[in-house]
């Protein structure tokens, strides 16, 4: 078994080498396809990172009427914490709210002055609610609107960041859609070209194949070199495409680093490079195997 695999891998490397420019063409177009695969994957990763950052800043604030006691509010807080969609509930007391307000508006003398004039704390105590998933905020908002304490609630602040998230989600969806279409187009083109290359390999080896059949070589032994050849195309193209993506990111790093949370797109890429490469190898090998299988179905008589 090892003998067979060893011999066929050797044979497929020789095929790859002897095909020369045909191999170069097959690998090039596959590199293009895998570059698109990798780029789309990277954009997806970056977009997820951005989205997660924005999502962290989303929350629902529930402001309670002035006459509601602190114990009552904390009781409500405990109830809310038991809901599984809600990841955290933070209590902001009237004093703390004032503190935050003063800090945020320290540069605005007019506001500070008018605050002095009021004399007392005009702010309301609130609960800041965060959900696990941005799509769950609607449900949480609905829950609060119908909650047992709804009469105690003065105001619900919801939807501030929601629009941004919806827009971002829309953009990501569009990018993924366009990316998948591009991957599809390039995938089909690469299958056609690899198919053609392997067809020619089969043609140049028709004598060997005929002899193999006549002397009773197993079907697998006849087929495996072509399968391996397809895998070789996929793997080599994956590495080249990864290098190109690495170079591209190195170049755009200066302009685009602000996008990711860590502030360095290149190191963000390095952290995910293995996933990108792995995905490319899987897709590349799949395209290679698929094309040689089609070529063998059509041209290799067993």
């Amino acid at each position, binding site marked *: *078994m090892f*003998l*067979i695999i060893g*011999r066929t891998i050797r044979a497929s490397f020789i095929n790859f080498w002897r095909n020369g420019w045909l191999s170069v063409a097959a690998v090039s177009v596959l590199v293009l396809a895998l570059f698109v695969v990798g780029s789309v994957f990277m954009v997806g990763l970056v977009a997820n990172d951005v989205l997660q950052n924005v999502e962290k800043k989303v929350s629902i604030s529930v402001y309670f009427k002035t006459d509601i006691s602190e114990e009552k509010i904390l009781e409500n807080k405990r109830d809310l914490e038991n809901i599984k969609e809600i990841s955290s509930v933070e209590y902001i007391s009237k004093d703390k709210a004032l503190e935050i307000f003063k800090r945020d508006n320290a540069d605005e003398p007019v506001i500070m002055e008018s605050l002095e004039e009021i004399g007392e704390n005009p702010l309301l105590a609130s609960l800041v609610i965060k959900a696990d998933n941005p799509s769950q905020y609607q449900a949480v908002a609905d829950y609060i609107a119908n909650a047992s304490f709804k009469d105690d609630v003065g105001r619900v602040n919801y939807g501030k960041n929601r629009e941004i998230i919806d827009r971002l989600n829309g953009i990501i969806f569009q990018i993924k859609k366009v990316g998948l279409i591009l991957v599809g187009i390039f995938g089909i083109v690469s299958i056609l070209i690899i198919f053609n290359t392997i067809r020619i390999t089969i043609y140049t080896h028709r*004598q*060997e194949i*005929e*002899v*193999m*059949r*006549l*002397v*009773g*070589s*197993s*079907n697998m*032994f*006849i087929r495996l070199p072509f399968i391996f050849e397809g895998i070789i195309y996929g793997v080599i193209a994956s590495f080249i495409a990864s290098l190109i993506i690495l170079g591209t990111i190195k170049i755009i790093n200066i302009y685009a680093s602000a996008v990711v949370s860590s502030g360095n797109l290149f190191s963000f890429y390095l952290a995910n490079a293995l996933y990108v490469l792995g995905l490319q190898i899987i897709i590349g090998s799949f395209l290679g195997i698929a094309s040689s299988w089609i070529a063998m179905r059509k041209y290799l008589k*067993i």
Partner: protein
Amino acid sequence: MRRENKTEIEDNIEIENEIEEMMPENNSPLIKFDHVSKFFKDDRIILDNINLEIKAGEFVSIVGPSGAGKSTLLKMVYVEEMPSEGSVYFDGVSLDMISRRKLPYHRRRIGTIFQDFKLLPQKTTFENVAYALEVCGLSKEEILQDVPQILDIVGLGDKMEKFPHELSGGEQQKVVLARALIHKPLVIAADEPTGNLDSANSLEIVKLLLEINKLGTTVILVSHDREIVNKANRRVILLDRGKIICDDAKGKYKIC
């Protein structure tokens, strides 16, 4: 052909014993064509209701004009062609019962020889024969042991490192014969083996085939070379337009 060499004789005996072990025990035919017909898509009839039995150890010459269906008949033995109607039985088993996965194992029981040799030009004599073992997954040790032995039998022990283009036609055909014998087949299927050879070389090949037959291997020889068929002086089947015209136990070419 002189073969006084002692080791060669020993080798021959060894192979003879091995072949005997592989022989079917009963006296039923090794190959049986049962109402076999073959049509092409344009309704051309290649073979027309062939009934034929070949026993183990026989030497059968199939003769007839071009297009009579001789090669098609032979191809059915090693399942390069399938009958349109009827069945071919090998060792009691219908060949269309053999799955595609098992087919290679059937082909190892049959050694094939062709007019155009089908040697790989970029491989030496040794490598060409070794290739048949290599692609069937045998180890290097087995190859190094078996290949020189078989090349000695066909008399090419001293030309192992020569490439096909450095050999004469007769020598090339002997390499093919060695390759055909390497799996110790039950049957040698020879399709016009002397078509590209002069009469001296042709005779030598036939002598080798007769010798192989003497050791117990069934030989089916397709040919329209009158001289070599007469030389064999064995069972002759005359085929014309897909039909068996006559079948003589001790025949001459075109006697009927």
